[in-house]
């Protein structure tokens, strides 16, 4: 269980920090352009940070005590493949979820 001080620190910190990121250019920098190399890196933040976050959760899931788990691996693969092919977030979530439950059912 997470303690209340941590929860509220994170809520306030993340709220203010996210606002600062959103306000940074629109509010403070105005119409001056950003250096190209900064924009070039910013373009890849989401596709770098989120896979880095997810990879250990797929390979060493906390729910199995960090043991590799075939239903969870299969589910991740299916989600990624459907998402890549269909470009549809909901379709990928549904297929990934069905694979997970199918796999857990088969694994007993």
């Amino acid at each position, binding site marked *: *269980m*997470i303690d209340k001080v*941590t*929860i*509220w*620190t*994170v809520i306030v910190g*993340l*709220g203010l*920090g*996210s*606002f600062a*990121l*959103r*306000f*940074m*250019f*629109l*509010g403070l*920098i105005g*119409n001056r352009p950003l250096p190209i190399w900064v*924009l*070039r*890196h*910013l*373009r*890849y*933040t*989401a*596709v*770098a*940070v*989120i*896979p*880095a*976050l997810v*990879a*250990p*959760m*797929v*390979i060493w*899931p*906390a*729910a199995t005590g960090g043991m590799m788990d075939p239903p*969870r691996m299969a*589910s991740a693969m299916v*989600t*990624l*493949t*459907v*998402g890549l092919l*269909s*470009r549809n*977030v*909901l379709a*990928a*979530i549904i297929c990934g*979820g069905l694979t*997970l*439950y199918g796999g857990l059912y088969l694994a007993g």
Partner: protein
Amino acid sequence: MLPVTPKTAFWMGARCGAPFILVIVPFALLFGVVASEAGFSVLETFVFSTAVIAGAAQFTALQLMQEQAPTIIVLVSALAVNLRLAMYSASLTPHLGAAPLWTRAFIAYLTVDQSYTCSVGAYERYPDWDLATRVSYFFGTCVLVLPFWVLASVSGALIGQAIPPEFALDFAVPITFLAIIAPMLRTLAHVAAALVAVVLALGFAWLPYNLGLLVGGLGGMMAGARVEQLLERRTSGDAP
């Protein structure tokens, strides 16, 4: 076609935002459920979703808090996920930078994936819109998205405690993230960023305080930027 006034632009924006409700509601419900399982009260979930309005960052923070990561690591990692909002802010500035400060503050608060995508698309399609029309369109894109986001988060928190562990909800977070990221892998540079990030994050998973996440994220960003630069040089044909 009738001339576009700020009033009609507002409803055009709302129409552009409407389909995103289908994506936002399940995502926010899931956030509410996972937050309540992690020990968040309904009020805390409500305030979190209202203050941050960024599902991916909220999930990141939640995950790291559950792993007992230090608060500073939780904040840095979640804000890193939100760095794209700074990019949105930069990209909206030429269109909305002339608005009054208070208006810009509200626009900043409401800058999310959906409002940004709709608005930039519309501003490029209708370059002759005046400032009032553009501002009005922007707020229109949020008028449905934001209430549904907050209400679904709270609903998720309310039903959360009722879901037993056999439903393997722990894995809802990776599935949701993968589903969001996969369609974003549009170019070789995006794929390179993701692959390098994964390899580094796994290779440096032994680092304390979840620093492997930051190593993976930064390494992936650098890989993406580098590949983009190489591809640009090849297509333009003349190496500098």
